């Protein structure tokens, strides 16, 4: 029986099925742990405690979450226009270059109130510019966006290495990093921010970019579902021919969607460069751009779903690190395997359980309707 057309209540679609998927993933992860002689319940306990158990853990979890929100949104916006932006990694990297260049030039001269908005704009503009080129090639030359964005990740990495090794490196130091920005260019840490209100929390990398990420979620929701541009974007995403018939220019949509997507990916630099590292360095993107694809898939390309999925990935990253820290038998490769299982069941096999859920649902429903009133 084909069940894909049968509608389920929203709480089942958005709540129950993802939870079942995660339970499945944890079950298989548990089998792996049993195989190496680790108690799975203890491991899950360490993971949850390591992600939420104390304020430092929460700080790290939310810090990772911030990155995933940005890259997840970036993938989602492009996805609504039927574009698969795999270049989030490179766009985030170049976004960092934007922040770095602007701050290295201006941090001595401008106050924080000006520097921080300028830094955010630079991250977005550079990220958008890096997405613009593949977008233009897709729109006007038909080069497939998946291929070009992947290739642009490598170009971005090469540019960054060239600049950091040869041009922007602080002279006489081992590590290819720029000098540290002036403190006026630092986005306040959450522990500093809460400290202003008398709340004392442990020092973590979590900074105010979390609020900016949540603001971007709201902004993306408005953009996609409440503006004319969003309507055009979704229309062109569903059917290019219909869009053209309705007077929408698909080429413009491709370019604008990719630029918004690139800007969102570039905002990873707001968290990493402005918020945490305060200097330009190599590889700060650490694969967040790629993980954003899984986040967006799992979050069904909706900002609320993306926040939930980002939180889950934040838990996996931070809890996973604690797991590797506490149990020597669990190596970091094992943590990646557990993360992989969760992505597999929640992303690739997201709808595997749905037919059974529908059957159970129909059974209950028919029992309800048959029951004498």
């Amino acid at each position, binding site marked *: 029986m084909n069940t894909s057309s049968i509608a389920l209540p929203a709480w089942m679609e958005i709540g129950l099925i993802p939870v079942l998927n995660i339970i499945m993933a944890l079950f298989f992860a548990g089998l792996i742990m049993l195989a190496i002689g680790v108690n799975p319940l203890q491991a899950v306990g360490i993971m949850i405690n390591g992600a939420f158990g104390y304020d430092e853990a929460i700080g*790290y979890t939310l*810090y990772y979450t911030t990155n995933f929100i940005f890259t997840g949104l970036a993938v989602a916006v492009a996805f609504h226009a039927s574009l698969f932006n795999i270049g989030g990694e490179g766009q985030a990297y170049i976004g960092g270059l934007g922040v770095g260049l602007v701050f290295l030039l201006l941090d001595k001269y401008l106050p924080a109130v000006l520097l921080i908005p300028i830094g955010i704009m630079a991250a977005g503009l550079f990220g958008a510019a890096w997405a613009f080129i593949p977008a233009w090639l897709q729109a006007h030359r038909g080069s497939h966006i998946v291929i070009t964005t992947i290739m642009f990740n*490598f170009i971005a*990495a*090469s540019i*960054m*290495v*060239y600049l950091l*090794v*040869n041009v922007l*490196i602080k*002279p*006489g130091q*081992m*590590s*290819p*990093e720029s000098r540290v920005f002036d403190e006026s260019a630092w986005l306040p840490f959450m522990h500093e921010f809460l400290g202003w209100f008398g709340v004392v929390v442990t020092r973590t*990398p979590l900074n105010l970019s979390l609020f900016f990420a949540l603001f971007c979620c709201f902004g993306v929701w408005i953009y996609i579902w409440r503006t004319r541009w969003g309507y055009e974007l979704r229309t062109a995403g569903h059917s290019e021919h219909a869009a053209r018939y309705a007077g929408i220019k698909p080429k413009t949509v491709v370019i604008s969607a990719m630029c918004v997507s690139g800007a969102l990916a570039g905002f990873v630099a707001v968290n*990493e460069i402005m918020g*945490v*590292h305060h200097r330009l*360095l*190599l*590889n*700060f993107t*650490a*694969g967040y751009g790629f993980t954003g694809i899984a986040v967006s898939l799992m979050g069904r390309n909706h900002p609320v779903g993306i926040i939930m999925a980002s939180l889950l990935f934040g838990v996996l990253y931070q809890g996973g*690190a604690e797991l*590797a*820290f506490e149990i*020597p038998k669990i*190596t*970091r490769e094992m943590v*990646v395997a557990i993360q992989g299982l969760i992505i597999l069941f929640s992303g690739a096999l997201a709808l595997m359980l749905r037919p059974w859920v529908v059957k159970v649902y129909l059974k209950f429903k028919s029992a309800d309707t048959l029951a004498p009133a």
Partner: protein
Amino acid sequence: MTISRLGVIAGMLLSASVATAADITPAVVFDMGGKFDKSFNQGVYDGVERFKAESGIEYREFEVTNETQREQAIRRMAQRGANPILGVGFAQAGPMETVAKEFPDVKFTLIDGVVDLPNVQSVVFKEQEGSFLVGLLAAMASSNQSVGFVGGMDIPLIRRFACGFEQGAKHASAQVDVVQNMTGTTPSAWNDPGRGSELAKGQFDRGVDVIYAAAGGTGVGVYQAAKDGGKLAIGVDSNQNYLHPGTMLTSMLKRVDVAAYNAFKDAMNDTWEPGMKVLGLAEEGVGWALDENNESLITDEMKAAVDAAAASIVAGDITVHDYMSDNTCTY
């Protein structure tokens, strides 16, 4: 400089005597390559494993997977009461500096990077000196007067290897041609044997017959290509001669294992001191490998030349240029 160094040492002497022998709880934070990278991190792993085997003292360990985890891991170790804490790789310098300030009573040792704090010991190596020696050997072993270098990720540290190698080769003979390639610009360049093999074959086609690989796991591909093509290759960091006896000319040794072992051992014996340790040829921190796997490849003439060069470097008669002192390779 001297005054601040004295201050550092004085501060250390005051705080050094807190721990007594054998009550240490050592910890090591490996870097992104992971403890089984067959090269740099694994050298550290071998060193701390030797310490564990000899002393019976267990150590805590962590392998970082992204930039932010370095600081997190070092701090978590310190919070858990680990002392001393061993950091691996120059990239841990910034994070270690931050954490070392927060835990002034904890001893930190950083391998391959420098942190100027009274509770941090920085161990760095003169890779250029070891590279010079293998460059000399390479040039003498090359029948085409053409030697090659395959680096990992294109960063100043690897250019330091390349520059020392080039200077050593030219020292043997000014006519020697030195061909250089870097594997890539991302961290995957440390672990790309396929590309290493391609680069090596490319260099062989250009007439190179001895290749020095300073490229982590990528080097494995270079050594394999040399074996397949009947050419010679030179290993790096650990003694890799055993990988392909007969085509491994030698290995440039960088004794990170000794540095790691000593960091724990000195802490246990209460002889640990902060400050900078620069390990070059004179300190036997770098060198070249001669064992039963490559003794047939090293002629007496080569051995005499390399021993003479090593003696000159130790005596200061030859200065091997450090690329990172001025970011150029002029010697």
